[in-house]
């Protein structure tokens, strides 16, 4: 039988260029997070189901790869990494003073079928600020998300900021029987505004809140949207959300990212999980949000250490896809030197390789002895900028594209390469 060389559907190999782009993006994200004082933690790929049950909704639990470990416990491969971080904060870090700033990076898995472009293994980099409430903490995390997108090299991006309480307030205020309310929630979660309209049309009482629900996808813009919405809502929860959003917006201007921030009162997210300010980051011409996050003040209490919290994660795969598709996609870094040898030149080649690497260059030393013509062919296959052929201890021949081959002592070649001279 032929082995499945393509791997399991929905899982992919990252080839050298893709792997390089992904790794670079991950490092720039973590570096930006560390600049803001967030400490890197690594949580395992496997978690106990009873831990995940505390933090995940039914749909998310359904999509986990589950199995039993040797002791008969049901465990799962993580589908996101906020819940493991919450477990950490309430467990091993319980003695650490709040607020805590933590960041993480790693793969997450989902059993979702690998449909068109849909992957079952993706990479997320995230940051969590645990133990701080209020607009200053909300704005810090949003500004960090914006700076993170910038750090990866995405040129044009925007952040949409909304508030879960704005929606909860409207749902409290609309006069509808409970079963209609839950149908309204379901229609909104499915982003089905046709269903929403027919549900609301069938009700006798029409309030300004009805109108707001129907206009949900269009409730976005600059600070003026807050006044417009303020004139329409008549409930305290939504009004409080609007005033909090106004404060966050001012703080984001102070953070220097006012021009990339939009207010989006109609953001539709997992409203059972989020309790306050929520946000999404979008890159240019990309059908899905690249970053998403928000305030989740009720999660930590389920682990026995009640604390307000906010955070976000960046979909690393989408970032690298965006960079690959950009006008000037990143290229695989070139190998600086291919070091070939013949006869007694091996020692010289190995020493020269070490020297070049010491200067921070990428150098490949050949594994077999080659004559001049074969060495040139090997050089082109390696794709290096320079070929250094070592035939004796004292002198090596150095070739570089478009110039004649020169014979020099090895230390002179190293010195010239390190000095950027060719």
């Amino acid at each position: 039988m032929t082995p499945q060389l393509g791997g399991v559907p929905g899982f992919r190999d990252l080839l050298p260029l893709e792997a390089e782009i992904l790794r670079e993006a991950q490092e720039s994200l973590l570096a930006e997070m560390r600049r803001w004082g967030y400490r890197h933690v690594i949580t395992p790929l496997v978690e106990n189901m009873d831990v995940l049950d505390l933090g995940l909704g039914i749909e998310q639990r359904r999509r986990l790869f589950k199995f039993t470990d040797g002791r008969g416990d049901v465990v799962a491969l993580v589908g996101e990494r906020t819940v493991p971080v919450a477990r950490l904060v309430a467990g091993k870090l319980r003695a650490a003073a709040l607020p805590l700033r933590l960041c993480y990076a790693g793969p997450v898995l989902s059993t979702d079928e690998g449909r068109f472009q849909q992957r079952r293994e993706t990479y997320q980099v995230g940051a969590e600020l645990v133990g701080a409430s209020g607009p200053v903490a909300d704005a810090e995390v949003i500004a960090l998300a914006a700076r993170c997108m910038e750090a990866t090299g995405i040129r044009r991006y925007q952040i949409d900021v909304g508030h879960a309480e704005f929606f909860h307030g409207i749902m409290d205020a609309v006069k509808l029987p409970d079963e209609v309310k839950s149908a309204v929630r379901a229609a909104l979660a499915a982003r089905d505004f046709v269903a929403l309209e027919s549900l609301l049309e069938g009700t006798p009482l029409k309030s300004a809140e009805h109108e707001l629900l129907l206009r949900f996808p269009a409730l976005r813009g600059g600070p003026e949207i807050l006044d417009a919405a303020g004139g329409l809502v008549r409930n305290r929860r939504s009004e409080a959300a609007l005033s909090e959003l106004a404060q966050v917006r001012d703080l984001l201007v102070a953070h220097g990212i006012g021009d990339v921030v939009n207010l989006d009162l109609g953001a539709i997210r997992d409203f059972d999980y989020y309790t306050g300010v929520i946000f999404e980051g979008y890159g240019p011409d990309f059908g899905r949000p690249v970053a998403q996050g928000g305030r989740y003040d009720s999660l930590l209490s389920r682990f026995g250490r009640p604390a307000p919290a906010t955070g976000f994660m960046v979909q690393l795969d989408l970032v690298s896809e965006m960079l690959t598709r950009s006008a000037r996609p990143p290229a695989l870094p070139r190998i600086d030197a291919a070091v070939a040898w013949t006869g007694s030149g091996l020692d010289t080649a190995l020493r020269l390789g070490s020297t070049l690497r010491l200067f921070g260059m990428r150098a490949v030393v050949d594994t077999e002895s080659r004559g001049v013509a074969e060495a040139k062919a090997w050089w082109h296959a390696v794709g290096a900028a320079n070929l250094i052929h070592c035939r004796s201890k004292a002198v090596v021949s150095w070739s570089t594209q478009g110039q004649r081959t020169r014979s020099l002592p090895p230390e002179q070649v190293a010195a010239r390469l390190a000095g950027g001279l060719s």
Partner: protein
Amino acid sequence: MTRDDQVSIAIPTGALLNGALSLLAASGLARLTAEELGRQLLLERGEVRVILVRPSDVPAYVDHGAADLGIVGKDILWETPGSHYELVDLRFGDCRLVLAVPDSSTVDGPDTWPPLMRVATKYPRTSSAWFEARGQAVEVVRLHGSVELAPQVGLVDGIVDLTATGRTLRENKLRITAVLGSSTARLIANQASLKTRSAAVQSVLSRLREASGRAG
């Protein structure tokens, strides 16, 4: 017009094509004939780019941002839920998704369903979900065409299929015993397009919404 100001709309081949083209014309966005679109598949007219794709592919184009907006039957959305916004009932392309059995069959209401119901359909997901919600064991045979034939040759007990007038069903000696749902054409939108290019998308959206209201 750059790609940034232009709004792309995916429209389906088949039964909804003429309705979609009339809507585009009525909204003043683009006057296109089925023939020219059939030849080109992608046409640019001022502020819109119109893309002609198979009906079942419309959600994929929209969900992945290859099209900002899409016109698609609700029947397709039942079968392929995704991350798009479903914004407007365009009120054309009326049809029903029905359970039909041979005229000679003893199957009628739920009480007469066999212990394991076998149905042929192009809508496996919707069909399974509907029967399962009613506690009925079902074996769904996914077919890609001529579903009406399946019960006549004894492959299945009945079919779940889309019908507008019921004529094809009658011609194949099938009768409707249940309606799973009613479908019309819908306008769907990519979640990110509404945010990252909202001015252009909202403008096209409101013209389509207005035109569909006038026609309906």
